[in-house]
């Protein structure tokens, strides 16, 4: 009985993490604000991004609002 209760409780907790209603592409207005980015300096952030994608062959994920790929 104790175990079942613990399981049920753990299930509820985890179900809260994996929301069935993720933030959609068109709901990111607040996330796209400059103050939501990691860096303060735009130019510096762009330089870091450039270095990152050259070295990692991957880009995106550091901010929202778009670089034109439509993926973020």
């Amino acid at each position, binding site marked *: 009985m104790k175990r079942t209760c613990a399981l049920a409780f753990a299930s509820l907790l985890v*179900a809260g993490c994996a929301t069935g209603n993720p933030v959609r*592409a068109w709901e990111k207005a607040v996330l796209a604000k400059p103050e939501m980015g990691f860096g303060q300096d735009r130019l510096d952030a762009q330089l870091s991004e450039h270095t990152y994608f050259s070295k990692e062959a991957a880009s995106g994920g550091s901010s929202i609002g778009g670089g*034109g790929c439509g993926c973020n």
Partner: protein
Amino acid sequence: MSVYASLLSVLRWIAAISLLAGTASAAALDVGQAAPDFKLEGVDEAITLSGLRGHLVYVDFWASWCVPCRQSFPWMNTLQGKFRDKGLRVVAINLDETVDASKEFLTRWPPNFKIAFDPTGITPRAFGLLGMPTSFLIGRDGKVIFRHLGFRNSDRAELEARIATALAAS
């Protein structure tokens, strides 16, 4: 039962539930499928997709905070001007949560095509939008000819060529 065994069973439960909860997502509208009709507030009058039947409709989803949309607006102006006589209609659906948020954008990048407002996000849900901006070219029969995710200035030539081909073919 040992502690490890019960821990393992808890982990299994957690994995199963996370999977179940995470799978709910809308499927994107594909080429060849009929585009879902919409009726949205416009600047002067309501805009419906069915009302534009017989034209090729370039539906673009945008928001004031979407950076690439600032590049796509001048291009869509050119596009609408160039292909209006051939039967192309550009409809840009704004997805800002308030209509006011889009006003500054529309003053800075004034459009010569139709603007519709969908603050509730019903249309992008129906179209299965995955990124911003996304555009769909809808044929005279109401079916999707192509969809394009994102926008870069380097996309202009290819998009224009595909639209010209579609106009010539129908």
